[in-house]
């Protein structure tokens, strides 16, 4: 399988502290859930090989600390990422309102201008939701990102979230192939944005 790998993609997971970024990653990479996951310090990463539509890609997923104080440290690792997962906690409204700041941060520090962004509402297993799916949708539509809801605890949506992100990255010309094939259409920016608007997944 190793030799058939199409490319290695760098994916970021960002968001407020305690929204379940590391749990999401643990669920995806090891299909495991640890309620006693420690706080991430700085950045950490995991790898996984994923097959999306017969394209085998290797993912290097960088997990970041959400604390304010680490913000001077973590953005350095945003470099050259092709995809970003912005996580919020559906049971905590403040984590949702902070998403705007995280998007700004991405715009400032990501070096690829067409990086694929995905907003993930995590912890949908909890009884009391503070952020409705409609609100999440509206936000994602406004910022032209992908949107998906997950639960790292019950496994819901985790696999599809990563698959969907990777699919989108592969479909975006010039993002992952690093200009090897000259199939980049410079004028195609508008088109990309348009397609970004319509691609929401309602997987829960």
């Amino acid at each position: 399988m190793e030799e058939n790998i199409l490319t290695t993609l760098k994916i970021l997971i960002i968001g407020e502290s305690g929204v379940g970024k590391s749990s999401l990653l643990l669920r995806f990479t090891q299909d495991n859930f640890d309620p006693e996951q420690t706080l991430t310090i700085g950045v950490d990463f995991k790898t996984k090989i994923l097959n999306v539509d017969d394209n085998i890609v290797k993912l290097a997923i960088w997990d970041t600390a959400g604390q304010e104080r680490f913000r001077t440290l973590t953005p350095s690792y945003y470099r050259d990422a092709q995809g970003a997962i912005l996580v919020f906690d559906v049971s905590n409204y403040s984590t949702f309102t902070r998403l705007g700041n995280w998007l700004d941060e991405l715009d400032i520090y990501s070096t690829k201008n067409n990086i694929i962004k995905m907003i993930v509402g995590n912890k949908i297993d909890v009884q009391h939701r503070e952020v409705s799916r409609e609100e999440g949708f509206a936000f994602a539509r406004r910022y032209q990102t992908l949107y998906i809801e997950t639960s790292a605890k019950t496994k819901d949506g985790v696999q599809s979230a990563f698959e969907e992100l990777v699919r989108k990255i592969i479909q975006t010309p010039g993002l992952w192939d690093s200009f090897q094939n000259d199939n980049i259409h410079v004028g195609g920016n508008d088109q990309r944005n348009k397609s970004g608007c319509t691609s929401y997944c309602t997987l829960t």
Partner: protein
Amino acid sequence: MNEEIDDSEFYHEDFTTASSWEILVANMEEIVHQWKSDKQHEKTPSSWDIKSEKLIYMDHNFDFTLYKRTAKECSMSENKPKHVLEEYYDFTLENSNSQDALCLFDWYGLNEFIVCSTAGRIEATNNESKTKILLSALTVLVNNMNLDIPAFVQIQEKWQKVYCGVYCSNGIRTNFDIVHLKRGPHYCQNLTGLLQLFKSKICSPCSIENITVSCKLTYQLQEFENFCNVSKDIINLGSLFKLPLGLTTSPVKTLSLHAVWSCLSEHSVIDSDSQTDFVLMRAQQWHCNVEFEDNLLCLLGDCLSEYLSILNNHNTIYDILGDYATSNTPEMNPLDVLTEPAVPTISSLIGKATKFRPKRRRQRYALIPDETLVTLLYFLFPDAAESGTVPYGVQIEHLPRKYTIINNRDEELNNIKTCNQESLVWRLSLVLSLCLQNFGGLKAFCHLWYEFVQEMRYRWENGIPIPGVSNKMPDLRTCLLNQKLQLLNCCLDRKIAPETQKFASAENSEDEEFFDATDDLDEEKRKEKYSLWDKPVGRLAKFNDLKLIKTGDPLYIPCTQDPVLKTEDQLDEDADMLLKLGSDNEASELRARIMSASLLSDMESFKAANPGAILEDFIRWYSPRDWIEEEELDEYGQKKGSLSDRMKLDNNIWVEMWENSRPVPAHRQKRLFDETTEAEKVLQFLDLRTVSQIVELVIPVLSHASLERVLDEMEYFPMEIPHSQTRAISLLKHVQAISRDSKCDIKRFEIFMQEITALELQISQISFLQSTLNPENIEDEQINNMIVAFVLGRNVNIENKERSIIGARIMELFKLHTQKTFNMAPNELRDRFDQIHPVPAQKEFVLRTDCIRPNLHSCQSPQFLRAILGRNEFRLIGAFSEDTSFF
């Protein structure tokens, strides 16, 4: 040939029944069959569809080639003439000189033909009997297959372009024949003589009366005055902002004006030794084309290729500068003079510069002269001069663009990973190019880099900020060189910031506390509690109204260390190191420990600012989401709470670190980021670059600047350059890729260079023609189209001849040219200037007729003769047909 033998394999086995000549014919037939069954290539980019096969005959290799005009090019295909020569055609408007054999199209007007020529360049079929053998093979082929295509054999030397051919159709056979001489016989120099020759060659039993004559006279203009001289000595400040673009010499080799007469009756014109009707002004049509010089030096392309040529030079600048750089004592460096802490006046600077010159003169030869160097350095560091320089960030006003080449140009160009146009790195790359191209090549290039590095060091040592570089953290969306300079500027900033200012806030907060204490006597008592070594230090500000859980003192945010700054190469190293650890849990923990240096530093600062604080206090500031509040209030009136579950875990790295940390204020801690070391690293990095590494740093910016230059040129150009959009977008793609390649991709840069040079050449050609043919810059679609057609190598029909703008201008050019040569003539001749006409460089006649041949009872067949009379060439191109019936 034997009828029953249709299997070609048979021939190879049985040599007794077939001669090698028969095999040759069979092979030819096979190839032609193959071509016929081949599908038409629908999308051939050129106007000719060319298929070629190899043949071997008598140990010689031959190319057997079919030339066919693509369908869209020959519009007359619908009503195909009976005979190939009957196609109405005299002089082509196209220049199809790309392929040798296509001259047959130019001469005979053939749309489809087969050529058999010796393979390779040197060999030629100059043996007559060999020629005859080949020609008879072709004749058999044409007859056997009933082939409606003329077939030719190339004979004599290849450059002579001499062919013999045969064509059979409807009982008429046409023989094609060419004569090529250096100088023709005197009786063939005019129409009268040629007509006689034509008639005697036809040798018809009846008299020939109906010959039509076409004529083309070619006038050539060759010496074009130089139009752009680049002075290499004077640098003007404005020119430093732009990369060079254009040519240093005239791109035009020859401008040819063709006077054309078509299909006249032989009796209506006279052209003999003594008299001629063929005079330029009386021509039916004027055609014009322009031939351009090969191998022209394009300044921008040359600049890029200069870089390419030193890309593999792995010497350091010290290797190249030798004594100059090493023996130079600091005070002899003109840069030190340039950037004295107190900004010097220009006069004092020039004074000092000249003072040192006698000493230095001896050491330098190919290096940049002082005056030039000072100008260049003021351009790079405008803050060193009081006036007369252009500081960074001054917007140059743009005229409205004439064309939009790339939509959202600014946005698209911002995606290039280089730097701002108003930055030091940008200017540096322009100046380096200038040095490389104009001021002495590699040595000057290294010299400038050396001076630049010296200046960086000087500024670091003397705490002078670097202009044209932002002092924010290194922007990873810019090129590496820019990041390095940003880092250096950040270090400078931290160095300059006075020590007192750094810790002023800490003292202030103590003052503040003092005032608090006067308000509340209890506070004062509590203050006494602090022992001498437990005094709070390094406080920044109060954190909301939070109070320490154990003591009830206000919770202070500590002064913390400045963030660590890194450039992309350092980050890559870090990330690599982290990646190498692997992705298991153990590695994760190890990574956490590596990353925890800043956490430890913050904890220690926090402890120093908040004596008596516990982990819970720290977490409330550092990671508020891990502090779960309860409704109940504690003794100090704030909500009680507890740490989150994950914080309470055993062996938690946070707890462990909290226990191990000591109260140390930020300014006494081990530095996370030591500006002195980091600045020294940057300076070393700059200093120790090899030539090749410097080029790699500069190439992205240079490519970007070249693209900007070409785009600017095209956007304000008087007319649209052909395919400008596609070409610009292709260039943009290259630049984006070049700027993002982590390792310089030489091939890509070469392609980029070729594309940009081709575009530059075309721009220069067009602008030269524009200034020559349309000096008043008249806005006229037709003129613009003509100029573009010239550049594309087409022959252009000038409507209204000398009455059109272009026609009049061309006449003027011819007159000017004649006048120049004429000026040397005696005065009395000069008065008759108007009567002087240019002399044609080449005459071309086409004679056609239909006549009965070879016998009185034969049917009419077309006869054709083209004569080309040049200064150094005489060529007769004939095609004579005869009826094959009954004989």
